[in-house]
């Protein structure tokens, strides 16, 4: 499909063609092809990507459940030998598979999808999907402290990429296939299409456009429909009654945000510190790293905290309904940070979304309960703090502020807590950004030796605008309706060499001193300046435009007028090549090419 379908399509039937009722199948096919130009085809393809990703994620979840039941039983209890034996042995199996069969599945699925988008022209090997499915299924099913969302995301992306390559769609569209599949995978895993769409837009693609958004939404929705069809529409948690009565309680949620931000930083720094060190160890140790992580998780579970195993959705559900005292919640949050850090840095395939939610939920419950001990008048239930806490870690650790808010709303189905969620998430995000400059996904990318665009940095970047490099409007502006000799007299007292000409009725032009004097000498002094200038109009800029947009003109024109958006004849200033390069030179310290 590198050539769009429309190029192969036959034109509209001529009057001689039989009526559609009597069309042969071949002609019917030909006329249908006209409908499927590449944009439409891509949208339809997005639905299929959603369907296939949804089917894959359903199978993936069944695989994890089946592994869990087969290896650990339906409800693991502390002090059972299986708790440390199973994840350790499973870790060995996973290590062999990762090192010998699926070497590309180490690392974050989000980053691999971004890499596919920005570096590999949308290419993600299908083997990655198979490897993620098998290895993450074994790892999470055996109790490693990781979640199924990131592998689901990558399975979706990988399926989409494989489909795109098979169909030979254009390179531009192929690049977008991976994010579209990623949205489908993530939506299916979370049963939350809006959050998935936002995450992919916010963290992977980094820009909004109707074409991309349409495809991402279609794939996410269709995958969620598939998952709900097969696995039911039950939410991940039984949502408790949530309350937010007094605005003064926002202070309590702000404290939760700060604590969550600090926990996010601790979590991110642990991973950032340990991951390169473990990767730097001799290769033979990599056979044992997942097993060691499994042993550690198993020992934590064996000693009394089986809640840290796996994704931990059941425990989050229990925390929401006040099943744990605040000390237990705090301990579980700390243990989960340790368990997830080791599981992830050991190279075991699996994601950090569910552990992030777990840590946030436990931390939220602990902070909420503790606050209520000191301030008994607080009306927020433990469940409310648990829900808000989930968003707090999402905002602080994954650094996706918009997704974090919508994720909580979508998971809880409760609009009432939006204000506490926004407040807490904002504090968490600000604390995390203040203490940990590089977001976790960018950190992992850099550790893997890739330089992918940091979307947070893009968001936060100070953009230079035309007004930053704009020079004041020149004192002498020539008028196209005046005679040449009158204009020549006007420039005699001016020191400038180039002058703007206000054209009639609109537009601008430019003329230099020599050109004007030559016109005068050629005896055209009795003609209007407008009549002797070339008809082409000078492009104009607006003060709020990015300075980059001025680069297109400054080489061709010595002066570019900057005009008011409400009145194009009102001159705000001018832009010249020197002023632009000077601004770039001072603002960004880049090499300014010498003027020619």
């Amino acid at each position: 499909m590198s050539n769009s379908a429309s190029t192969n399509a036959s034109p509209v039937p001529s009057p001689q063609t039989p009526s559609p009722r009597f069309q042969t199948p071949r002609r019917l096919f030909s006329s249908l092809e006209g409908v499927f130009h590449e944009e439409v085809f891509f949208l339809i393809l997005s639905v299929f990507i959603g369907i296939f990703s949804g089917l894959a994620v359903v199978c993936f979840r069944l695989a994890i459940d089946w592994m869990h039941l087969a290896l650990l039983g339906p409800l693991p209890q502390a002090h059972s030998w299986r708790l440390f034996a199973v994840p350790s042995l499973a870790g060995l199996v996973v290590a062999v598979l990762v090192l010998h069969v699926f070497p590309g599945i180490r690392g974050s699925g989000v980053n691999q999808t971004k890499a596919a988008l920005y570096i590999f022209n949308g290419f993600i090997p299908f083997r990655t999907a198979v490897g993620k499915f098998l290895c993450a299924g074994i790892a999470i099913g055996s109790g490693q402290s990781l979640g199924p969302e990131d592998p689901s995301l990558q399975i979706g992306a990988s399926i989409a990429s494989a489909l795109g390559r098979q169909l030979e769609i254009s390179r531009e569209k192929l690049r977008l296939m991976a994010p579209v599949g990623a949205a489908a995978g993530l939506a299916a895993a979370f049963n939350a299409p809006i959050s998935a769409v936002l995450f992919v837009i916010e963290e992977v693609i980094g820009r909004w456009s109707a074409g991309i958004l349409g495809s991402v939404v279609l794939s996410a929705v269709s995958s969620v429909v598939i998952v709900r069809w097969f696995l039911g529409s039950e939410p991940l948690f039984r949502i408790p009654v949530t309350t937010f009565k007094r605005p003064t309680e926002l202070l309590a949620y702000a404290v939760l945000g700060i604590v969550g931000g600090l926990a996010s930083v601790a979590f991110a720094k642990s991973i950032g510190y340990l991951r390169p060190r473990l990767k730097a160890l001799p290769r033979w140790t990599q056979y044992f790293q997942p097993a060691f992580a499994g042993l550690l998780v198993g020992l934590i579970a064996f000693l009394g905290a089986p809640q840290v195993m796996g994704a931990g959705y059941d425990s989050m559900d229990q925390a929401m309904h006040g099943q744990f005292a605040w000390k237990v919640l705090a301990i579980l949050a700390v243990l989960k940070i340790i368990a997830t850090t080791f599981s992830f840095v050991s190279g075991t395939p699996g994601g950090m979304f569910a552990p992030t939610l777990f840590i946030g939920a436990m931390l939220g419950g602990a902070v909420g309960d503790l606050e209520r001990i000191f301030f008994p008048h607080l009306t927020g239930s433990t469940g409310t703090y648990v829900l808000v806490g989930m968003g707090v870690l999402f905002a602080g650790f994954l650094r996706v502020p918009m997704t974090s808010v919508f994720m909580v709303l979508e998971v809880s189905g409760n609009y009432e807590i939006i204000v506490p969620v926004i407040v807490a998430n904002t504090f968490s995000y600000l604390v995390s950004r203040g203490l940990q400059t590089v977001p976790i996904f960018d950190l992992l990318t850099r550790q893997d030796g890739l330089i992918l665009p940091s979307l947070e940095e893009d968001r936060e970047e100070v953009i230079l605008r035309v007004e930053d490099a704009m020079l004041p409007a020149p004192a002498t502006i020539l008028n196209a309706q005046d005679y040449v000799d009158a204009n020549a007299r006007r420039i005699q007292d001016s020191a400038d060499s180039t002058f703007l000409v206000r054209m009639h009725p609109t537009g601008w032009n430019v003329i230099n001193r020599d050109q004007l004097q030559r016109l005068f000498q050629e005896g055209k002094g009795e003609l209007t300046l407008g009549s002797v200038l070339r008809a082409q109009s000078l492009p104009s800029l607006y003060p709020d435009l990015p300075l980059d947009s001025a680069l297109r003109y400054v080489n061709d024109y010595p002066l570019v007028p900057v005009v008011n958006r409400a009145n194009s004849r009102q001159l705000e200033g001018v832009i010249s090549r020197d002023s632009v390069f000077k601004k770039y030179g001072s603002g960004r310290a880049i090499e300014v090419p010498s003027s020619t």
Partner: protein
Amino acid sequence: MSWSFPKLVPRSAPVILLLLTLAAVIGFAAVGHLVARFTANQQARGRKLYAQGLADANAGRYDDSIDAFHAALTCDPTNSQYQLSLARALRDSNDPRRLDEAESYLITLWQRAPQDAAVNLALARVAAHRGSIEDATRYYHNAMYGVWNSDPDANRSKARIELIQFLLKKNATAQAESELMALATALPSAPAAHLQAAQLFAQAQDYAGALAQYQDVLRVEPSNSSALAGAGQAAYSAGNYATAQRYLQAAVNTNHEDAHSRQILESADLILRTNPFHSHISDAERNRRITTAFAQAEDRLTACAQQTGVDLNASTATTTTKTSAVKITSATSPVITSSSSPLSSLQSRWTAAKPDLARLRSPGETDLPDALMDVVFQIEQQTDNTCGPPQGLDLALLLISQKREAASQ
């Protein structure tokens, strides 16, 4: 090693979409088959765990049953029966922290089927555990008017009875009585139901209602000893001593070992024998009863004074002179204003009224019996407060006084 697939897909868009649709249908069927098998296995496993949980719950091992129900739910997360049983086990485990979890499961079920009577009843019991009258009443009512899978009338009646018992326990007597009214109108004809309703009426201190229910039982089973005893006690509590005597006598005759009924019967007999206001007695008998009561009141007053260490003679001597000219008609007014104890005051009043006993036979002294008995009643009430509940004739006089008081109000 790289994996690649041969590119077999044609370049025609409609063909591609047809093939994709075909692949989706095949994938749908395959995954559907897989999910169905997995779900069937899970459900079988869940059923085993559920049965184990039920056995544990029936044996009172709630912690084990909660674990088993949790495990069953991991196998079949949407099973309403498992959720309901888990919620019940959580509620019955007597751990206040688990009530929240129980409630959340039940709320989830309620949101799915708000008309489900069993869920509403379970929620009502959670609210009752919390002591919330408002929530409990709401959910009990939902249960009463909800959909029952079997035997709806009996279940509704049970739910209402449970609500009444809860309201009585919380001293919400007015609400309990209104529920009792509703219960009485919808009771089946079975004597057991009326017997239970009668007991609830009695607990709510609606003795007339209780008596009516006992009488309904006795119409069907005239020799039902429980109903006879209950009817007698209800009548006795309502101050209807003649009726009480009749039922209690029958109860004692039917069940010779019913000591409680016998004791109340004796009390009722005594009241009927000593009540001077009984309508079917002669003047002579009335005067005799008043004289006996008057003498009994003094004995009770003296005994109580001794018990509490009050010297009645000292105070009487000082007050007699003051009150010697006071007519007995003023016996109910607070003539005695000495600083002595209430018992001393009563002794003074009793002493002041004693000479009037002789005037009982005189015609025209129509207020005198009431005035004399007022002294007796005040003594009995005061000694009841000061020295504790009386027995025998004193108890009879006290009950007569209470009945008179209630009648006058």
